[in-house]
């Protein structure tokens, strides 16, 4: 689990740090977020954003502990290890699921073993559903929250053709669905905004709702992304920008305050 994320060429950071910073910079000050299981990169991004450009950002640790500010991030992002400094322990049945359904929480991040061009994810099975090659944990709350929450973020620390696929073996969590106005036709709010990966950042083309290259991490080419992606990658008009360099301040805060134990590397 705990690997050694690659150093980013010409940036004085590693890929986990670049991903956290890129995610963090996308979060507005009116973000009201919570997190699910094994969500180390999003947890770090929420905490970093609140300490930098988004001081009013709300983060409910484990979906329970509102405004938590723990000293460290541990081995579970659903653990009470994350709850230090919280102003409220909002319980799950009465509080959390009501806030989520009413979009009082407006931001959620999920990932899957497979993701498709529309930001739908599979965390249930690899192979045929009833005789799977790999039985994965299951969608948990992603099938719910993908429908309820208007601002969805995706991330992947393993950008390759086995993760980014043309067709999911199972759709555990809803992104933009079949694309176009599918979500709206189901009466569901918003949809995925960004997908931050170990190679690049995708946004979603406004009409089709397919992933589109928004920036390349240093040293990564368009061809690299395309060959690591099982569906056709849309390109923006003009040159594809390079993912912006994290500032020294962001890296310092991430390393010393947000995640001093390096829990974010558990995903690599």
């Amino acid at each position: 689990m705990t690997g050694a994320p690659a150093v980013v060429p010409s940036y004085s950071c590693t890929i986990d740090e670049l991903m956290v910073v890129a995610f963090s910079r996308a979060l507005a000050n009116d973000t009201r977020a919570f997190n699910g299981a094994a969500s180390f990169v999003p947890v770090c991004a929420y905490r970093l954003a609140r300490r930098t450009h988004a001081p009013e950002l709300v983060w409910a640790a484990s979906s329970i502990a509102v405004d938590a500010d723990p000293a460290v991030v541990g081995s579970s992002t659903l653990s009470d290890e994350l709850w230090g400094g919280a102003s409220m322990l909002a319980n799950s049945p009465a509080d959390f699921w009501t806030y989520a359904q009413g979009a009082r929480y407006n931001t959620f991040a999920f990932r899957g073993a497979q993701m498709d061009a529309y930001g739908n994810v599979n965390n249930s099975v690899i192979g045929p559903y009833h005789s799977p090659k790999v039985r994965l944990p299951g969608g948990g709350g992603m099938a719910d929250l993908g429908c309820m929450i208007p601002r969805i973020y995706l991330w992947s620390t393993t950008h390759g053709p086995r993760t980014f696929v043309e067709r999911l073996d199972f759709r555990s969590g809803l992104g933009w669905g079949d694309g176009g106005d599918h979500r709206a036709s189901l009466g569901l709010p918003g949809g995925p905004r960004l997908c931050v990966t170990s190679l690049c950042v995708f946004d979603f083309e406004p009409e089709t709702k397919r992933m589109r290259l928004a920036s390349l991490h240093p040293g990564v080419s368009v061809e690299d992304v395309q060959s690591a992606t099982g569906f056709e990658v849309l390109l923006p008009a003009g040159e594809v920008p390079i993912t912006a360099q994290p500032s020294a301040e962001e890296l310092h805060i991430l390393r010393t305050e947000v995640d001093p134990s390096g829990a974010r590397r558990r995903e690599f």
Partner: protein
Amino acid sequence: MPDGATIALGGLSMNSAPMAFVRELVRADKRDLTVVAIVAGMCVDWLVAAGAVSRVVAGLVSFEGLGLAPHFRRAVERGETTMEEYSEHLLICRLQAQARRLPFMPTVAGLGTDVPALHAGSGTLRIETDTATGRPYVACTPLAVDVAVVHVHEADATGNARVHPKLIWMDSEIVNAADRSVVTAERIVDNASFTAEPHRSSYPRFMVDAVCAAPRGAYPTSCFPDYGHDDGFYADYVAACGSPADFGAFWERRIAGPETWDDVLAANGAAVTDGRVAGGST
């Protein structure tokens, strides 16, 4: 708890699962259980490892950052155990429909995903359209549960029970849905302790059919704020799953073999007298 029963286990992921009770199910050699657990991990893996489970009804079963739940994964891949997969909220809605004796609970959860179609045959979920607004929803039908088992901090002899500092996870959903409920408690206290602070009670005695004293009964999961989950146990467990011989020895020495729950805790260096379990917080 007869063979073939549908039992629901409380807790969430590495938090507050009734592990001492689960171990007794293992030792009682139960068979053919249907286990309902909204977001689970170690509790399901123990029961699957013991061959006690024919069906898991869950939203998620994993060890989070420490990997997949090995026995659960293998048993489903081999077709020895069925995973009846929902999502957290779809399961909650089924439990609420049961608790309230309603034909269904509506939710937008699962729309646009492949989850509802898994249950088209059994009819436990139906996609319907509200005739007044035209909005689609998923109708979640009642989920009958024979026995719910939850772990709490304190209970009295009559069944009043409370979670300290308050009920956090979705345990009340399974207690409300179940025909009978068993509470395992860190401490048994006098009834006067409840009447002195009635605002702190989580379950009234008429919702609880049996109370068991189980100090540190959620180990190796957490019981916030008393103790955290034990990372070391999870890591050792996963490592032992690498070979049947290793796991057999681990199972015997640290889970199934010890005579009492206190002996289990001692075998894992987590006896109540040892203070907080490693990996804890607060």
